């Protein structure tokens, strides 16, 4: 494998946040990100702070009337880390499916080195 995993965004919540921020929008609002990722407000707050501290996510806070609005975007560093990590995951997925294919072929094939009965030479 050539692509390398990033342990910091390997946890599923952080991977989801970064993956959604990299989907194509320049900025994504807190509620949109929370709903798309299917996580709670507190989880998103906690993970976004961690990602911001790591330099992967940029946070912009504002307000519309009295309501506070928080917007997120991926930094170039975060984008690079995500691309590398997704490439690694894709390779892993490929390897897993290739392994599954091998196992399926091995069990389906009537003649196989592992499963085929050994021919015992006759005493004659």
């Amino acid at each position, binding site marked *: 494998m050539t692509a390398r995993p990033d342990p910091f965004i*390997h*946890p*599923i*919540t*952080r*991977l*989801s946040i970064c*993956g*959604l921020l*990299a*989907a*194509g*929008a*320049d*900025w*994504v*609002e*807190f*509620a*949109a*990100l929370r*709903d*798309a*990722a*299917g996580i709670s407000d507190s*989880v998103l707050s906690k*993970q976004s702070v961690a990602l911001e501290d790591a330099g992967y996510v940029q946070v912009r806070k504002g307000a*519309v009337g009295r309501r506070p609005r928080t*917007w997120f975007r991926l930094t170039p560093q975060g*984008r690079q880390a*995500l*691309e590398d990590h*997704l490439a690694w*995951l*894709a390779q*892993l*997925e490929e390897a*897993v*499916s290739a392994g599954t294919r091998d196992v399926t072929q091995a069990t389906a094939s009537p003649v196989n080195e592992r499963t085929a009965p050994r021919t015992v030479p006759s005493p004659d």
Partner: protein
Amino acid sequence: MGSVGRDPAALELLRVQRSRLADRMRPPWWYLTGVAVMYALVFAFPFASRFLGVSIWPFFAAALVVAVPLQWGWTRVTGMKMGFRNLSSPGPGRPARYAVVVVSLGAIVTEPLLIDRGLLAVAVAVAVLAVAAEVALQEVLLRGIRQELRGGGAAA
């Protein structure tokens, strides 16, 4: 926070989440109505210029008065700022962006010619068709953006 137990499943989850994000880009009725009003103002300019002697600036200002709140409301509803895409920006909506320019220029150039030849009804029909085409193209552009979001953009 759960860790990625089965990594390939994480990719599948990410696809589902991106699809959820893309579904937010479905336009409400008022958005397409606003787009229609904005283009109606643009394509009404040749008529106003010919019959009322109005300059382009009031029309430009009126179109901006519609476009700015429309874009603001759209950003609030979707929770996403997509950024400006010009004609050279890659993506599935690129042909539609070219079509928007062609339809706009075509209508703006054709309408005065028809008005000058006394074909007022045809000029009105061209304007109405152009507005309808622009609204349809806006739908196509949004479909392209949804497709882009589902595909994962640059980090697909």
